[in-house]
Structure formats: C-alpha cells, structure tokens
C-alpha cells in the first residue's frame, strides 16, 4: 500500500517553521542562479531596440516587476481568502508575509516605468489607465498592510484585511487588460497567449530569466518573513521555547 502523505501536517505553523527554514537557502541560490544569466542576457546578448535604442533594457526588470506585483497580489488574496474560509493561522500569516514584497515590486514597476517613460514619452507620469490601475494596486497593498497593523487582535486583523484583499482582486484584470480596453499611452503586451512573444528570442529569454529570478527571490523572502510572523504570533507556545534553546548557546 502506498504511504499516505499528510499534506495538512505542514499547515500548522509549528511544522512549517523548520520546513521554511530549510527551503530558504535553496530559493535564495536559485534566485542568484537566474539573476546572473538574466543580467548577462539583458546587457550583453539582447541587441539594442531599433526604435528605443538602449533605453528599452529597462524592460527586463520593468515587465517582471509588474508581473510579480500582480501575481503576488493574487497569491496573497488567495491565502487571505483561505484564512477567511478555513480559519487557518498559517494562511493569513502567508498573506501578510507576501504583502510588503508585493508592494515593493509594485513600487519598482512604477519607478522603472517612470524612468522608461521620461525618455520615451517625455513624461515621468501620465494618468493613463495602465499606470493609474497599477498605482491603485500599490494603495491596495498599503491598505492591506495598514489595516492588518491597525487591529490589535490578530484573528480580527486577518479577517478584516482578507476582505479588503479579496475586494481588491477586481483591480488585477483591470491592470492586465487596460492596454486593450482603453487607448493608453502605455504600449500593449509584447507577449500574448494568442500570438506568443513578438520580440527577439534573446530579449524574451532575458525577460523570462529575470522573471524567474524575481519569483525565486519572492519565495525566499516571503519564507523569511513568515518565519518571523510565526515566531511573533506563537511566542507563548511551548515549541517556540524549544526553537529558542539552541540560540542560548551563542
């Protein structure tokens, strides 16, 4: 008979804490292993764009950062919703562990976009549908984190911020399809499901490598943060005292 693996075992903070600790170095190394060839392709392999010259190289971090800002939001809202429905502690901890990194990538998407927009459009910022909806995403992240921090009781804080996160999900398709629905200054997608990538292979490879690097980085950092969250919230538990014991030797 096949041995049954109990997946729910790792849904308890106590069991997840050491597992997360073991996974962090692997994802950190993976992030580095994607970053190095990613940067090499971004600067040395991908040719200059025929219209935008060297400035388009911002794309290799701008597009992955923008993807991450949306993906992380979906994952965060998923965890928050799971915490709301199943009342599981670890899910809401994962949601709050992802929020700051998601907010950071949203900021980076806006920042790099601004530095790309200035030489290409002649403006740091325009109130275009894509840019505005991405800015709203930043406010949603900030709102989620502030609401969570404002309520003392962790379970109530998790519930209230989960509702906010779930309502905010409506903004994600708006960001994604904004370049199709409205006539925006922001250019359309360079990669679509129907046509595939409409760019040179080396540019596409650079972008995918950087996106993978950001993914691996995000997982590593979210695991680091969830470990802190677990320790903070479970500090009175017996097992935390066990974890702390070896650190006394230092």
């Amino acid at each position: 008979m096949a041995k049954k693996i109990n997946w729910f075992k790792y849904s308890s903070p106590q069991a997840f804490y050491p597992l997360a600790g073991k996974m962090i170095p692997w994802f950190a190394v993976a992030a580095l292993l994607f970053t190095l060839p990613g940067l090499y392709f971004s600067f040395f392999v991908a040719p200059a764009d025929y219209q935008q010259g060297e400035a388009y190289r911002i794309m290799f971090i701008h597009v992955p950062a923008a993807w991450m800002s949306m993906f992380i939001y979906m994952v965060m809202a998923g965890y928050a919703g799971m915490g709301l429905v199943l009342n599981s502690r670890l899910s809401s901890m994962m949601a709050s562990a992802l929020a700051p990194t998601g907010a950071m990538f949203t900021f980076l998407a806006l920042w790099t976009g601004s530095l790309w927009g200035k030489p290409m459009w002649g403006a740091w910022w325009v109130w275009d549908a894509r840019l505005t909806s991405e800015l709203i995403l930043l406010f949603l992240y900030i709102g989620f984190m502030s609401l969570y921090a404002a309520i003392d009781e962790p379970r109530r804080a998790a519930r209230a911020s989960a509702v906010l996160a779930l309502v905010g999900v409506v903004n994600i398709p708006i960001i994604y399809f904004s370049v199709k629905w409205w006539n925006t200054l922001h250019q359309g997608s360079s990669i679509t499901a129907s046509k595939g990538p409409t760019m040179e292979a080396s540019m596409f490879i650079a972008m995918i490598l950087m996106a993978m690097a950001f993914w691996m980085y995000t997982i590593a950092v979210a695991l680091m943060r969830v470990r802190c969250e677990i320790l903070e919230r479970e500090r009175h538990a017996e097992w935390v005292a066990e974890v702390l014991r070896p650190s006394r030797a230092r």
Partner: protein
Amino acid sequence: MPSGWPKYYALHGRDEGREMNLSEFFAMGGYGFYVWGSYGVTALCLIVEVVLLMRRKRTLLQRLGRMSRVTSTEVKNEIQT
C-alpha cells in the same frame, strides 16, 4: 574592456558591429541615467529588504530568548550588572 569581459557590440547606428568600451557601455547610448537608475534602485530595494528581514529575525530571537530566560537566575544577575 577588461579581458574576459563579455564582448559588447554596438548593434545600431554608424558603428554597427564595433566592440564597445566600458564608458560607452555605462553611457547606454545616452540613456545611462534611466537604465542604471532603474537597475540600481531595483537592486537596492531587493538588498535592503533582505537586510531588514535578517535584522528583524535577529532582534526577534534576542528578545524572545531574553523573555524565555527571564525566570532563570543567570538573567537576574545579567540585569543587575
């Protein structure tokens, strides 16, 4: 270009195919400020986030360690000194 440095070619304009030197590389065809401003701030954000998290973990472990030892006598001595 230092030896071993990847060859970087100007792929547009008059000097197509010519190897670039280091200062030309950093100039990014006149877009240096925008390109390096993007990559620099991104790198800074990622590094700062990791450093802050490592510090958070360290102070947290110290604080919790202190809390768990509060009842033991050795800590009482530590507080007095």
